[in-house]
């Protein structure tokens, strides 16, 4: 009952249309995500509860150190909400970056033996990161509501935009890192390094205007247009600005920053896909 393939043209095996091919493999993608989550929490008592425990601990520690000891609590209204909405952004970024970087090497037995569009693995990693992201957003929502969160449509839109910015940006970098990690395992350490730095080089603990006055104009420009800064500001606008007693101080030039950051995200994603495809042909032999 083998299908009649005479109508099908000859093609070169092992070529895909990259990210554009992913929707066709949706079913497998779903199973890969499920596998990833099952494997991560194997033999764990708390299981998925860890997605709550880790950010909660993070929040308490940072709040005590930054809010109380360094007295940011006195300078920023509803500092807890401010802090956590930023942490959530950085956590999403870091997890996507770490997961995607390890995704090809982690699936080496598959990559080396069966041909699938290899972008499936980084994309599955992004999805896994979102599974961990949503509980954090839920906690953030509860926290914001306690502080009298009353969002308008613009605030909700800012949240969606912020998520998009982080997802596109980190997938782009992640694709490059995933490919480099096959050649040099240093990429994983490098991704960790970026994760360590990113939380300090975007307005998570402090407010953006504290940076503006402290550095030369060109550094400030880079800082402000960094997609992570923009995403953090979008999240602040979504969750922190509409809470009780906060006077929203949207930077006047935010539109320009957001536009530049969006362009950067798209360029990074295109670049990431190109680097990935360039190295993809050698994945099977290098692993």
């Amino acid at each position, binding site marked *: 009952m083998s299908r009649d393939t005479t109508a099908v043209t000859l093609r*070169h095996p092992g070529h895909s249309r990259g990210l554009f091919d992913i929707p066709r493999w949706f079913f497998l993608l779903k199973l890969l995500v499920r596998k990833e989550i099952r494997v991560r929490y194997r033999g764990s008592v708390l299981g998925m509860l860890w997605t709550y425990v880790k950010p909660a601990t993070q929040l308490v520690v940072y709040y005590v150190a930054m809010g109380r000891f360094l007295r940011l609590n006195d300078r920023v209204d509803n500092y807890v909400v401010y802090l956590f909405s930023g942490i959530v952004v950085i956590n999403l970024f870091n997890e996507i970056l770490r997961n995607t970087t390890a995704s090809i090497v982690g699936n080496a037995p598959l990559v080396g033996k*069966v041909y699938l569009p290899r972008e499936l693995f980084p994309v599955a990693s992004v999805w896994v990161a979102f599974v961990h992201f949503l509980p954090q957003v839920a906690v953030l929502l509860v926290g914001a509501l306690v502080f009298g969160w009353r969002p308008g449509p613009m605030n909700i839109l800012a949240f969606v935009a912020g998520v998009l910015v982080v997802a596109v940006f980190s997938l782009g970098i992640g694709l490059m890192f995933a490919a480099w990690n096959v050649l040099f395992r240093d990429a994983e350490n490098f991704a960790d390094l970026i994760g360590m730095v990113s939380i300090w080089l975007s307005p998570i603990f402090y407010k953006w205007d504290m940076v503006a006055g402290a550095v030369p104009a060109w550094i400030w420009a880079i800082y402000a247009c960094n997609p992570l800064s923009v995403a953090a500001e979008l999240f602040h606008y979504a969750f922190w600005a509409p809470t009780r007693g906060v006077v929203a101080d949207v930077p006047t030039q935010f539109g320009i920053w957001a536009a530049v950051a969006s362009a950067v995200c798209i360029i990074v994603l295109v670049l990431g896909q190109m680097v990935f495809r360039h190295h993809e042909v050698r994945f099977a032999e290098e692993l």
Partner: protein
Amino acid sequence: MDNEPVILVENLDKTFVLRHTRSIKEYVVWTMRGRKGELSETFKALNNVSLTVSQGESVGLIGLNGSGKSTLLKLISGVMQPNAGSVRVRGQVAGLIEVGAGFHPDLTGRENVYLNGAILGMSEKELDAKFDEIVAFSEIEKFIDTEVKFYSSGMFLRLAFSVAVHSRPDIFLVDEILAVGDEPFQQKCLAKIRELKGQGQTLVVVSHDLRRIQEICDRGILLDHGNVVLDGTISEAVDRMHNK
């Protein structure tokens, strides 16, 4: 059977670079000692290989270790890309390079059937429909909801083989499939493969088990150090290999 080619391999070259080190430290040390040339060496796995496989053919690739059989299979499946020459295929290729590629020890048998089936290109509907048949063929119904790491190697291979033969690709690529389970199960597998063959399934098989491969394949290709030495019937190829 019509003679439409489903696999067309032309002037295929594949070279591997074997790197001995990646670290900066060793790179510097070796360079200073004038041994830079030894940092990597190239190895030609396939040399100007051409072949055509028509629909419904069953081809056995044989040769000693390192003759390039598995590399050729990987190039046909698209897992690897050639350095020169071209590979073209028609229809869906099951990249079943080894039985059980993609099985995860921490998932249950059931989960692995779905995951592996999807990897081999089956849709959710197909898998739902064939699930019982797959499990029944493997004869491990009792353990289907047990994690695969607790399986014996025989049970594992049975399940993996069962998923693979039920995936029904246009071209079936198989590396060392024939050592599956005990004698009765092997007979069952052979019968299944013959059944597929009877239905016009194209097969390319790599194996060291020369007796078994003669039971399955009609055509044989003997490879030696990346060169095609003989392309004829399977018994000719096996005889030639024995006489060397």
